[in-house]
């Protein structure tokens, strides 16, 4: 497996949100979140279903417009120039109706750097080099998600958003995704990984952002979060209880 050299030209980027509010269906679905994500960490966003994890990710990536508040990356307001340095993998991969290789070439061409070697090394990175000529949408769920991840990595993102990418995958596929994400993080990408799988959070996280009902409950280093979380809600969540408030 070829592993591209660390991308030293691309220092990590830290993110910050201030007073973030997002309204939908007559309610604040994101309800005044203040958060500062350090540059160097792999951040895992945890919380029960409907907590607002996906909304937070979409807002931070500029896919949604907040009703109030600010989103800063590297101290600057989120704009298109920052957005091209970010990539996102969705819970359900959206693949083009083309071959596996063509899906990668497509994004490389968008950024004006499609070369055969680039396609090959990206596919090798996620272990799909044998399947380059297959129609992408015929792949298994795990392979599709790996392709989506390879496509995101093709953008050489400074920030990589992952929204429950393994929610419907088997353990082997999950392990493969996790190790690719860890490598990307080691090579310098700021990773923000949403999950509601506690085991996955333990395996990946440097710091945990814990959301409940559109609010930030706590943002703590992973060790402390799992040993002695600050909040009652996190304790309930960790002990497998439903959080009813």
């Amino acid at each position, binding site marked *: 497996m070829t592993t591209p050299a660390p991308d030293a030209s691309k220092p990590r980027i830290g993110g910050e949100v201030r007073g973030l509010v997002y309204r939908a269906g007559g309610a604040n679905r994101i309800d005044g979140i203040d958060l500062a994500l350090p540059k160097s960490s792999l951040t895992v966003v945890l919380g029960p279903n409907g907590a607002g994890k996906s909304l937070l990710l979409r807002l931070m990536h500029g896919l949604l417009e907040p009703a109030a508040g600010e989103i800063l990356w590297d101290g600057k307001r989120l704009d298109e120039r920052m957005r091209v340095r970010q990539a996102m993998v969705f819970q359900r991969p*959206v693949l*083009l109706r*083309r071959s596996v290789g063509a899906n990668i070439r497509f994004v490389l061409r968008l950024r004006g750097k499609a070369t055969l070697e680039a396609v090959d090394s990206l596919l090798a990175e996620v272990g799909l080099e044998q399947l380059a000529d297959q129609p*992408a949408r015929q792949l298994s769920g795990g392979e599709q998600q790996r392709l989506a991840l390879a496509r995101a990595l093709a953008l050489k993102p400074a920030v990589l958003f992952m929204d429950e990418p393994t929610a419907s995958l088997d353990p082997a596929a999950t392990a493969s995704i996790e190790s690719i994400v860890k490598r990307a993080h080691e090579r310098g990408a700021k990773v923000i990984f949403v999950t509601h799988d506690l085991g996955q959070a333990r395996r990946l996280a440097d710091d945990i952002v814990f959301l409940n009902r559109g609010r930030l409950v706590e943002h703590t280093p992973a060790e402390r979060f799992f040993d002695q979380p600050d909040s009652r809600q996190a304790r309930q969540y960790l002990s497998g209880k439903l959080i009813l408030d």
Partner: protein
Amino acid sequence: MQDFGEAFRLAFQLVLTADPDLLEIIVLSLRVSLTAVAFSCLIGLPLGAALAIARFPGRPALIILLNALMGLPPVVVGLLIYLMLSNAGPLGWFQLLYTPTAMIIAQTVLITPIVAALCREVVEQLYSEYAEQFRSLCMTRRQAMSALLWDARYSLLTVGLAGFGRAVAEVGAVIIVGGNIDHLTRVMTTAIALETSKGNLALALALGLVLLTIALSVNAAVMMLRMTASRYAYA
């Protein structure tokens, strides 16, 4: 009164012996309609795709208009193009009336709305799936449009076939602007209309058989495209 059985026998004979007059009519029909479809796709596909992803105030009205234009009566199109191309008309100077070019223009006007409207529907459906990913990739409208057109290629081929089916079978527009002139602008549908009224049922029937075969082939092609597309999960 001609014997129908005899007419059928003669019709099959014309088809099977590849009668030169028959062939000439078929070839012209195909040339006119295929050219019209090509132009319609050239105009209608980008138009439909643009309408599918653009958001502007008059958009719903435009979509309703386009859908309404799908049902344009061919004779009305024929009449309008006739007025444009006749000597007194704005394009009379080109002397196109009663030429195959006039017929191509009329059929292009007739089926461009069909291609555009169906394309809009297909692409909009696809875009609802791709939109967020495209936004994440910071794609421009132009990039999105061409990517969508390519990914919808199988559906759009069937759109083109639908346009062709409509063009090759219509009679109202081509008879007005083409005039059904022997060896010049006589196509299958106009020939059937004329020969039937003259009582020459054999030629009319032979052309009818060919038209039916074309209609069947178009539908078979659409079916095969759908199957191919779903086999590769490209549908």
